């Protein structure tokens, strides 16, 4: 080793090591008034080393010298960017790359070259030039792939260039560090793609980052599980149920590891325990959404134009499923699988507990429903109403939604009615207790949902009644009472829109326009459906009904922008406004036939 051989070299290595310790360990203890103190000392040392190296004679070991210089340039580059001197940092990093350029594919340089590019990516993102950052990071990614294809042996870690030979790293350690540098590349790329709004790519890189964290054991179980669960929600929004389920299954499996690991000193605070329970409940909530989305998407596929299950469509989809199932899914699966063999088995076992294909009949739907319902119980264990009002109610709303979609698959109207009754039983007590002063929006959601549920139940009772020869008094009473409840909740909802002086708004805001109109429209219909043998009462109901229909028509005339939101309802309202007065006239004539 040319001029810096022997014990001179040992001193150089020592200096280098001190600089690294200063930079990575000591600097964390620097006072806030002098935050870069250790970094500056490290920089001075690195520059000394650089001096010593350049004093060395060039010649026989030019390549070795260039690589060592590149390591120093890299360290100096990182040091300068850390201390907010971006331009200087960029120069050093560029020089590092220049020095390495000819050797970038050799095992002693490739890792350093990738890390230099990673750092240039960060540097350019700090300058708000995300596209430039992207080019560096993508080129780092390409280099990794090329190296792995052409060579693939564990490459040297940059720090080894200043290490005595006898303490060089093992192949295993080298590989670990190299892979970590590459994981960082992918992690930065995930961010770059997110900033560039390349959502799909961002998700894909998040996925790969998670996968690699798992492979190289560089993860914290709870954090990892939560990330995987969050990613599952992305896949949900894309209707990729297989991927979503895989993420969730992996999240659950990895999370359970966190519980098993006996805590370091076994002095976990209550707070930590609490956090752990909350995370578990969060993952359960992701599962609930999974079941719900799967069921709801299936409903969308299966319903006819009045929202009922379409048997033809059902048969068609069943046939189609048989054909596709095997071939397609398997190909996709390979690409996204998490984990090494042992974890993989647990994940697969977890996956088997719930389907990832659209349920096509009640039985299939029920199985998914039950899984969802179990997770509802699990999530509620932590998110109790006392302390977690919003979360608790959201979970109850999901539970209600699970019942709602299950009811779609139920053919028996009586049983369907009972499912809706379950929804009412869970929502009504919360709704009555909830203070709208603090929970206005949730309050409205509950009122509307309750109204809607009563409305549906009434429709079902009417349908059941229609099958009978004659409506018995019990059924009539039931229908009327359901209709009254529906009216009550629609009115409560409409009242919530009133201002402090109890005046209904002249102009409805966009976010409540459609629900408010639907509420008015449904109230109109409900008054039309009330059954009474008293003609005078009937006339009154028709009058009320007409008023509500008229509201819709008048409002849309005044604010034509509203028409878009309620086209169908408006059309029917117009029709009713035309028909009702004649009908009422006839009824009146019947009442007083002698006039």
């Amino acid at each position, binding site marked *: 080793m040319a001029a810096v051989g022997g014990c001179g070299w040992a001193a150089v290595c020592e200096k280098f090591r001190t600089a690294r310790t200063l930079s990575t360990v000591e600097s964390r203890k620097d006072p806030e008034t002098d935050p870069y103190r250790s970094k500056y000392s490290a920089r001075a040392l690195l520059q000394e080393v650089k001096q010593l190296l350049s004093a060395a004679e060039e010649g026989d070991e030019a390549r070795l010298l260039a690589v060592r210089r590149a390591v120093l340039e890299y360290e100096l580059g990182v040091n300068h960017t850390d201390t907010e001197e971006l331009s200087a940092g960029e120069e050093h990093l560029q020089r590092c790359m220049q020095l390495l350029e000819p050797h970038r594919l050799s095992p002693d340089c490739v890792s350093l070259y990738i890390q230099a590019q990673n750092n240039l990516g*960060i540097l350019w*993102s*700090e300058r*708000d030039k*995300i596209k430039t950052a992207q080019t560096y990071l993508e080129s780092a990614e390409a280099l990794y792939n090329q190296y792995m294809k052409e060579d693939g042996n564990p490459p040297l870690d940059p720090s080894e260039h200043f290490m005595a030979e006898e303490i060089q790293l093992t192949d295993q350690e080298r590989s670990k560090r190299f892979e970590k540098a590459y*994981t*960082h590349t992918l*992690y930065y790329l*995930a*961010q*770059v793609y*997110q*900033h560039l709004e390349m959502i799909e790519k*961002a998700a894909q890189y*998040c996925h790969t980052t*998670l996968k690699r*964290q798992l492979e190289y054991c*560089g*993860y914290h179980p709870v*954090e*990892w599980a*939560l*990330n995987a669960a*969050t990613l599952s*929600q*992305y896949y*949900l*929004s894309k*209707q990729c149920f297989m991927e979503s389920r895989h993420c969730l299954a992996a999240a659950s499996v990895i999370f359970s590891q966190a519980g098993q690991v006996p805590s370091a000193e076994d002095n976990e605070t209550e707070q930590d325990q609490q956090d752990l329970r909350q995370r578990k409940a*969060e993952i359960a909530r*992701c599962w609930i*959404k999974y079941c719900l*989305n799967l069921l*709801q998407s299936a409903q969308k596929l299966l*319903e006819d134009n009045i*929202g009922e299950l379409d048997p033809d469509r059902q048969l068609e989809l069943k046939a189609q499923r048989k054909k596709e199932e095997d071939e397609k899914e398997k190909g996709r699966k390979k690409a996204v699988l998490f984990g090494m063999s042992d974890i993989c088995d647990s994940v697969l076992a977890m996956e088997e507990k719930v389907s990832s294909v659209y349920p096509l009949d009640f039985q299939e739907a029920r199985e998914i429903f039950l899984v969802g319902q179990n997770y509802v119980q699990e999530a509620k264990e932590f998110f109790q109403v006392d302390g977690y*009002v919003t979360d608790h109610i959201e979970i109850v709303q*999901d539970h209600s939604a699970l019942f709602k979609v299950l009811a779609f698959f139920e053919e028996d109207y009586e049983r369907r009615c009972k499912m809706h009754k379950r929804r009412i039983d869970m929502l009504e007590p*919360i709704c009555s*207790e*909830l*203070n709208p*002063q*603090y*929970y206005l*929006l*949730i309050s409205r*959601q509950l009122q*509307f949902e309750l109204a809607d549920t009563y409305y*549906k139940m009434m429709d079902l009772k009417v349908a059941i009644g229609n099958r009978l020869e004659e409506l018995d008094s019990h059924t009539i009473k039931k229908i009327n009472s359901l209709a009254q409840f529906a009216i009550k909740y629609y009115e409560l*909802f409409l009242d919530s829109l009133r*201002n*402090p002086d109890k005046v209904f*708004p002249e102009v409805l805001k966009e*976010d409540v326009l*459609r*629900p408010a109109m*639907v509420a008015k429209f*449904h109230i109109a219909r409900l008054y039309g459906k009330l059954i009474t043998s008293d003609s005078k009462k009937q006339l009154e109901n028709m009058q009320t009904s007409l008023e509500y229909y008229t509201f819709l028509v008048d409002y849309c005339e005044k604010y034509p922008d509203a028409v878009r939101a309620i086209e169908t*309802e408006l059309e029917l309202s117009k029709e009713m406004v035309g028909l009702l007065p004649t009908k009422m006239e006839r009824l009146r004539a019947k009442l007083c036939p002698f006039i």
Partner: protein
Amino acid sequence: SVEGDAIKVCVRVRPPSEGTSLSNGHQGLCLSVLSSKNIRLHSKPEPKIFTFDYVANMDTTQESVFSTVAKNIVESCMNGYNGTIFAYGQTGSGKTFTMMGPSESGNFTHSLRGVIPRSFEYLFFLIEREKEKAGSGKSFLCKCSFIEIYNEQIFDLLDSASAGLLLREHINKGVFVDGAVEQVLSSAAEAYQVLTMGWRNRRVASTSMNRESSRSHAVFTVTVESMEKNNEVVNIRSSLLNLVDLAGSERQKDTHTAGMRLKEAGNINRSLSCLSQVMTALVDIGNGKQRHVCYRDSKLTFLLRDSLGGNAKTCIIANVHPGSRCFGETLSTLNFAQRAKLIKNKAVVNEDTQGNVS
């Protein structure tokens, strides 16, 4: 009416620090106030004009800031509505001056006292007036708490011994800080006393734990409870008035508002700490699909969730420093203030009755 629930946004321009404006006229300023609603930022190449509900010029008095911005909120608080007043802006832009008044005067009658002491006065003035009107049939109970949010942890400024309080929700009372001291108030002077005491705790903390005051949010909450007896019927009404001094806006770079900056991976293996943020962003963009985001909002937004687009009356006072050296911060404050008008609670009424019109 519509005006009722929108967030009101006001901008207040503080006078430049001594020396800057006098020596070089208006040269050293990066903005000019055009009217009581418009402000022009001297950006290049094109100047940019911002419109707000109210723009307070450098010479606007404390009194007129109070009466334009806060009076109405205190009044609606008396009518049973929750109200919140935020101060936002970079360190040195005059947040504390606007909210508290000159720091050196512990004097509550100082003519330069800020929005908070004036709100107290007005609140108790209204309470007295109500009491006189209603006679013995109506009584009031005022309580206050004062907390600080630093590093996503909650501290009680009225009990300096406590640490790490939790946010919880009550089905009838909304969000609250579990275990926070509540002090009963009987007059504005008392309220001011509690406030200054707490404020002092805030500063003490800033030296003992080496944190800067501008890194923490301080939330002073007054609960007004009224009880009215009509024959045998007892009518209880309760509302909150939140007075919030936000951390200096320049400290918030690390949050979601950050631009293109990439989060670096830490030295420790596991710490690819921003992955969660990337994914939360991906899920957030989701297209109306049902989904659950595992990562909670910040403590502050959770605590004030109701104020941000709920049915509370909320006002944001964005403070800016007119010096041209502050151009960047001023621009970002004005941008924030403009966005604030659009803040809405994301929840919607789930209306799904397709196919039900038959």
